[in-house]
């Protein structure tokens, strides 16, 4: 390590100049890299030495051939526990988070994550349960998975659930693989090569279709923000495998032609896939399975409040109709012995059913196989189960009512200052456009987002959905108070006024954040993706490829 100069961090987050490891160049940093704090021989954790018994008994056993041994130790940081903890705590201070800030990031459902869920996930009886322990030792884990699947069935109206997918996009992949397995079983898979996606869809939908070898075909939206039914009907045919539709849509609008949409898809022999990212708006009001969808993924990290973790872990269970059930991933947690009604009733009353036995069913000959090792993100199942049981029937309904009320409140409180391309009843979120500010004052949505940062609020999702110019996608969720919503309204109105009176002030934003606007183009042009130790020559340049656009964020 060449860096002896790394200073103690400035807790104000302003950073201090010091000589960085890369090329001896002066650089101001907010918090040095952990590698730059490393000093030889320092350490946080100690381990015992090997035992005499191990040394004696093991002497009869072969060692590792020298040719397979590493010749240079990995240069992991060497720091004390205190230095390490301060480093990560200081990094933590550089983040906005739900537990600190209003975080109305559209499409992501950034609601409060109750702490009892964390308590539950850390129970040793669950956290230390090994996935390959004999089933007799894992009855609690299996029962929890079975009960969660039962609850998800009730919530969604589907007849069967797989908990295996690790994230929403992973659930999409699972759904599309099942779609293809279904068409194969019908003998018309070869001709069904297209998957239809509305132009308001999440980018994962077309990307998933491609991963399964399908061609994604975009269906336009109509003037009201719904799907263009005529265009959909024209696109449907014997070459279509599925429609992937998000409902409520990424515009925050419930698709009120949903019956016609599902009927048309089914008539064409295609699979009706619902992206369940926005389920938070419709709990107890609309059940996709009941309405005729074939498959939907849940985002447990959205609707059921498992922490987003800075970008995962999520969990993306899928629910399916009867015709897709045979193709679900294996294994499935099942109740192998016992009466399901009795087991459910007992569990709802907090009791175990002594004669119940849970098992993992591997015997699913038409299954698409496994999409993930083992059974899924179990820790997320624990949190989601805790959350659903805490809220119960009344609580789940209230969640959607309050989430929808909050979104509509923001809609009416702000629609005079920001354009609202689709001025209709909102569901979980409302999508404004910053086009007026851009045209009249040269202030872009990106500028507005940066100005929001300076006011202690995480900005909405911006530049998504793609069909809204200068989009600002606001999802307040049900967990925010009226005072918080009113504060946000005040901030947004103030920014709109400032955009008119002093646009340059907004273009300078943010000025209160730990770092200012970052040069993303330079980051993509000269990728610096890892710390370089002093003795490493500059890593090879990435080959020229697709130029990175100024990334809109979604």
């Amino acid at each position, binding site marked *: 390590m060449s860096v002896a100069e790394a200073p103690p961090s400035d807790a104000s987050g302003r950073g201090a100049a010091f000589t960085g490891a890369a090329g001896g160049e002066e650089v101001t940093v907010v918090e040095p890299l952990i590698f730059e704090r490393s000093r030889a021989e320092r350490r946080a954790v100690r381990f015992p030495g090997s035992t005499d018994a191990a040394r004696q008994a093991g002497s009869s056993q072969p060692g590792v051939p020298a040719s397979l041994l590493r010749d240079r130790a990995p240069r992991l940081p060497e720091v004390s526990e205190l230095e390490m903890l301060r480093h990560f705590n200081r990094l933590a201070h550089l983040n906005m*988070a739900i537990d600190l800030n209003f975080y109305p990031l559209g499409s992501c459902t950034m609601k409060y994550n109750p702490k009892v869920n964390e308590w539950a996930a850390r129970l040793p009886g669950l956290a*230390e349960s090994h996935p390959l322990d004999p089933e007799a030792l894992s009855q609690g884990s299996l029962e929890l998975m079975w009960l969660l699947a039962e609850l998800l069935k009730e919530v969604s109206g589907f007849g069967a659930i797989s908990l295996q997918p690790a994230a929403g996009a992973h659930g999409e992949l699972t759904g599309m693989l099942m779609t293809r397995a279904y068409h194969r079983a019908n003998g018309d898979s070869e001709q069904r090569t297209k998957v239809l996606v509305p132009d308001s869809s999440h980018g994962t939908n077309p990307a998933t279709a491609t991963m399964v070898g399908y061609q994604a075909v975009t269906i336009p939206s109509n003037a009201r923000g719904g799907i263009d039914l005529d265009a959909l009907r024209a696109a449907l045919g014997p070459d279509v495998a599925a429609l992937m539709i998000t409902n409520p849509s990424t515009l925050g609008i419930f698709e009120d032609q949903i019956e016609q949409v599902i009927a048309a898809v089914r008539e064409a022999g295609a699979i009706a896939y619902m992206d369940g990212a926005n389920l938070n708006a419709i709990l107890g009001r609309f059940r996709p399975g009941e309405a005729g969808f074939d498959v939907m993924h849940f985002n447990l990290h959205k609707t059921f409040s498992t922490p987003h973790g800075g970008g995962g872990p999520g969990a993306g269970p899928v629910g399916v109709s009867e015709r897709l059930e045979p193709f679900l991933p294996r294994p499935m947690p099942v109740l192998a012995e016992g009466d399901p009604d009795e087991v459910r009733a007992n569990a709802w009353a907090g009791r175990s059913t002594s004669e119940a036995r849970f098992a993992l069913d591997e015997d699913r000959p038409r299954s698409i196989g496994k999409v993930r090792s083992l059974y899924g993100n179990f820790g997320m199942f624990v949190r989601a189960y805790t959350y659903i049981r805490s809220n119960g029937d009344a609580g789940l309904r209230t969640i959607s009512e309050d989430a929808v009320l909050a979104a509509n409140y923001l809609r009416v409180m702000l629609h005079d200052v920001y354009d609202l391309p689709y001025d209709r009843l909102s569901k979980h979120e409302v999508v404004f456009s910053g086009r007026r500010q851009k045209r009249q004052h040269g202030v872009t949505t990106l500028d507005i987002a940066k100005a929001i940062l300076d006011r202690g609020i995480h900005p909405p999702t911006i530049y998504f959905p793609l069909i809204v110019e200068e989009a600002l996608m606001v999802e307040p969720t049900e967990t925010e108070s009226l005072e918080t919503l009113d504060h946000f309204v005040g901030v947004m109105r103030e920014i709109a006024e400032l955009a008119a009176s002093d646009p340059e002030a907004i273009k300078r934003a943010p000025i209160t954040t730990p770092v200012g606007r970052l040069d993303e183009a330079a980051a993509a042009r000269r990728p610096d993706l890892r710390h370089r130790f002093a003795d490493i020559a500059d890593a090879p340049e990435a080959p020229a490829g697709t130029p990175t656009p100024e990334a809109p964020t979604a």
Partner: protein
Amino acid sequence: MLDAVGVASVDDLFADIPSAVRAGEWDVPSPLSEQEVRAELARLAERNRIPTVSFLGAGAYRHLIPSVVGEVIGRSEFATSYTPYQPEVSQGTLQSIYEFQSLICELTDMEVATASHYDGATATAEAALMACRVTRRSRVAVSAGLNPDYRRVLETYCSGPGVEVVTVPVDLSEGGDGTTDPAASGGLDEVACLVAAQPNFYGQLEPMRELADAAHGEGALFVAVVEPTSLAVLQAPGSYGADIVAAEGQPLGIPVSFGGPYVGLMAARMASVRQMPGRLVGATRDVQGRRGYVLTLQAREQHIRREKAASNICTNQALMALAATAYLTAVGPSGLREVAELSMAQARHLAGALESAGLAERRFGGAYLNEVVMRVPEAARRHAALAEQGIVAGHLLERGEAELRDTLLLAATELTADDDIARLIDALEATR
């Protein structure tokens, strides 16, 4: 608020849902208070029986998780933020991912690592698909020594774009060394990659350099699937010619938690970075010249490229990657080496003690690391009998190949005590 919105009732907020598709009744139980919900979760936790002695690994390993790791990932600022789309207020997450990428590069001796994947199996599957993009070929060869769960996931992923999977056999013969035979890999013609694991599923050490050479000889890439703690002592994949590395990061400070959440690791060469799936964080400067971090090379990703993306992956496992970052920082280079060496020493103690007691013998020759296949007469019956007493005698390989009947895959880690081994021996003696 209803007045402000201009509706008379909450129901009016849902008037856009056509009556024909409104939800019917559901059977969701009543709400629970915190003490009631705690009792319910405690009930389920108590329904599990956590073994008092366990030699179970087979892809998920119990290691010491330093207390400070839990402290770091428990911070609300990490746990309750999301994907760092606004880098100015996400430097904590972004810098920690940059540190994670750096640590994985250092462990594997590779040039670039992603921000993480769902788990080791999906990282392996995505690595195989990446190899197809790099080589423009559509067959992949997979060692039969790869964890069977990973093979199944890889097969599922490959079924998507119609990539053919061929299996390269492992020598399971009596007296064989349980490794992939580079010579038997005659099926490498026109494959995009050869995927092999070090150590392999049976705990055996593979001739990785020979396998890499065999792959490269056919113009294919070599994908190494590794166990991260082992890299404190074993050759780094970069040094034996791996083109892509995939791994399960669970041993790095993450509880076994009935299978997840874990974290997939992936590393590769810079020459193929634009074919990599998943998120990448890069260093840059802000308007004042200060160092900062951003999501970068996003032109590979679904939210920009949609159907032309390298993968549909969106969310990764950021909080689990942070756990791995905190773990590697807490243990440091000497601690990681001690973990690997203690695990190896106890595995040798275990195998030696079982052999000395005449209870079991090693099924394979050759070298192993911290997991070993032992032949135990009537393995299934005795495994079940021990489980009743809260002793898990490793993983019963009965569901695998017929050659592995009556064998157990036993793992040791630094948490394996001499007393655990003594109790296993006594319990096995009692079931003779």
